[in-house]
C-alpha cells in the first residue's frame, strides 16, 4: 500500500496518511458514484443501437429536449444579465438591508426544490399574486413552457451572482481611474475595461446555471403542467418511462442526457482553466 502510494506521489512529503486517505477517497468515490453511474451506461448495452436511437429520438423525447435545453438556456441568459446587475449593485453600491439581500441570494440553494415548485405555481397561477396581474394581459405562466422558464430562472439565480461577485470585489479601482483619466466615458470604461475582466466569471456562472437547469426536476414539475409535447421536461420523461416499467427506455434517455451533462462539465473545466491561464489567476 505504502509503496504503491509512493509510486503515485510526484513529490515526497513528510506528512503521513496519504495511502489511507487517498485509498478511502477512491473506494468511497467508486462505491457511491462511479459504479452506480457505470451501471447505467452498461445497462444501455442491453439495447441495440437502433433501439437506443429510436428511443432517444421519439417525437415526445425530442420535444422534451427542446423544452429542457431551450428553457434552461433562456433562464441562464436572463440570470447572466440580472446576475451581473445584482452582483454589481451588491459590490458597488450601499443601501439599507444590503446584508439581508446578500444572504437571501442563496435562497434557491437552500430552499428544497419541491417547496419552490409548489410556491411558484401558487404565485404564478391565474389567481396567484403575480399570475393574477399577468392574466388580464393575456400572459399565462403556470402550466405552460413559460412556467418552466420561471422555475429554472429561480433555480439558477445564485450561480452568476456568486461567481461574478468575488471577481468584482477584487477588481482594482486603479484600472477604472486610469481609463477615466485617459478620457474614457463611464460607459466605455464598463464595456472595455470592467466587462472583459468579468467575462470569464460571467461565462462560468452562466454554464453552471445552465447545467443545473437542464437536469432540474422538483421545482419544474409542479408549475409545468406536464403536457406531452408541450410542457414535459426530459427528467420527467425518465420517471414516466420508469413508472411504465420501461427501464431500458428510461436508461437510454438518461444516458443521452448524461452525455450532454459530462460534455458540459468538461467544457466548464476547460473554460476555467483557460480563463485562469489567460488572466493569470490562481485558486
Amino acid at each position, binding site marked *: 500500500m505504502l509503496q504503491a502510494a509512493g509510486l*503515485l506521489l510526484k513529490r515526497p512529503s*513528510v*506528512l503521513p*496518511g*496519504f495511502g489511507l486517505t*487517498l485509498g*478511502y*477517497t477512491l473506494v468511497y*468515490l467508486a462505491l*457511491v458514484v462511479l459504479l*452506480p453511474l457505470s*451501471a447505467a451506461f452498461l445497462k444501455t448495452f442491453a439495447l441495440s443501437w437502433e433501439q437506443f436511437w429510436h428511443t432517444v429520438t421519439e417525437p415526445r423525447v425530442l420535444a422534451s429536449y427542446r423544452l429542457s435545453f431551450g428553457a434552461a438556456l433562456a433562464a441562464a441568459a436572463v440570470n447572466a444579465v*440580472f446576475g451581473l*446587475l445584482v452582483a454589481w*449593485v451588491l*459590490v*458597488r*453600491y*450601499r443601501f439599507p438591508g444590503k*446584508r439581508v*439581500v*446578500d*444572504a*437571501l*441570494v*442563496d*435562497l434557491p440553494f*437552500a*430552499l*428544497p*426544490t*419541491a*417547496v*419552490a415548485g*409548489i*410556491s411558484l405555481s*401558487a*404565485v404564478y397561477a391565474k389567481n396567484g*399574486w*403575480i399570475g393574477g396581474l399577468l392574466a388580464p394581459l393575456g400572459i399565462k405562466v403556470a402550466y405552460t413552457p413559460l412556467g418552466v422558464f420561471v422555475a429554472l430562472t*429561480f433555480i439558477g439565480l445564485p450561480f452568476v451572482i*456568486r461567481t461574478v*461577485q*468575488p471577481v468584482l470585489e477584487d477588481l482594482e*479601482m486603479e484600472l477604472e*481611474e486610469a481609463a*477615466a*483619466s485617459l478620457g474614457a466615458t463611464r460607459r466605455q470604461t464598463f464595456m472595455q475595461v470592467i466587462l472583459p475582466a468579468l467575462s470569464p466569471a460571467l461565462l462560468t456562472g452562466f454554464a453552471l446555471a445552465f447545467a443545473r437547469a*437542464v*437536469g*432540474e426536476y422538483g421545482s419544474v414539475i409542479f408549475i409545468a403542467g406536464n403536457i406531452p409535447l408541450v410542457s414535459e421536461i426530459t*427528467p420527467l420523461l425518465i420517471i414516466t418511462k420508469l413508472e411504465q*416499467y420501461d*427501464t431500458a427506455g428510461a*436508461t437510454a434517455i*438518461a444516458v443521452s442526457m*448524461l452525455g450532454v*451533462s459530462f460534455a458540459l*462539465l468538461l467544457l466548464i*473545466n476547460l473554460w476555467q482553466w483557460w480563463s485562469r491561464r489567460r488572466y493569470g489567476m490562481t485558486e
Partner: protein
Amino acid sequence: MKTAVLHQTHVSLAQPTRQAMTPQATTEPVAVRWALTGLALFFLGVFLLVPLLAVFTQALAKGLSVYWTALSEPTAWSAIKLTLLVALISVPLNLVFGVSAAWAIAKFDFRGKNLLLTLIDLPFSVSPVIAGLIYVLLFGMPGWFGPWLAEHDVKIIFAVPGIVLATTFVTFPFVARELIPLMQAQGSEEEEAALVLGASGWQTFWRVTLPNVKWGLLYGVILSNARAMGEFGAVSVVSGHIRGLTNTIPLHVEILYNEYNFTAAFAAASLLALLALVTLVLKTLVEGHLQPSH
C-alpha cells in the same frame, strides 16, 4: 464564496466616497445608481421574496389550528423523522469522505489529481432524477443485484436504504468542495512543524488541521444538510412514496399537493422553508469566520 466585509471601494448611494477627487469618474450618476439598485431589488423581490412569502401565507391561510393539525398528523411525523434519519446518516458519511479527500488532495501532490477533482464534482452535474435511476438499475427488480436481493429478502429500492444512498449521492461533493481549497490555501507548514515536534499523525490532524478548517467544515455540513433534507428528484425515484414508511418531507409535500390538500402541503413546505432560512442565517454567520478571500 462571498465576503460579508464591505470593500474599501464601496460607493455609497447617497455619497460617492471619491466624488471630491474624481467627480463621477469611477461611479455612475445618482439617478443611474438608484435605477440599477431598484431594478436589481425588483428582480430579487419577484423571484425570491414573493415565492418565500407565498409559502408561509398559504400555510397559514386557514388559520393556526389547521396548520398545527396538518403538522401533527402521523404521516407528517413519520416524514419528519425519516428526513432527519436520512440526513443523520448521509451527512456524516460525506463529512468523513470530504475530510479524507481534502487531506489527500490538499496535502500531497500526485498524478491524476485534476481528474479526481472532476470526478468528485460529478454528482453536481448529474440530474437528480438520474441519480435516483442509477440506484434502481443497481438494486431495483430490473437491476443487477435486484433478483439476488429479492431472494434474500433485502429491500433497498422503495425502502429507507435506497433513500439514504440517493441522498448521499446528491450531497457527495459539498464538504470536499469546501475543504479542498481551504486546506490548499493553508498549506502544510503547521502540520510539518507539529510532526517535527514529535506529534503523531492523528494528533497533528486533531490538534492542528481540524481547528484550522473547522469553519469551512461547518460550512460544508450546513450546505450538505440543507440539500439532504430537501432533496426531491433523486429520492422520489427510489422511494416508492409509501406513506408513513418511505416518505420524506419533500415527498409528503408532493403527495398532499397532488391531492389538492394545499394548506397541508404548504404547512409541511413551511417547515422546509424555515430550514432554508435557518441555513441562510447559519451560512452568513459562518462566512464571517471564514477568510474574506474565501
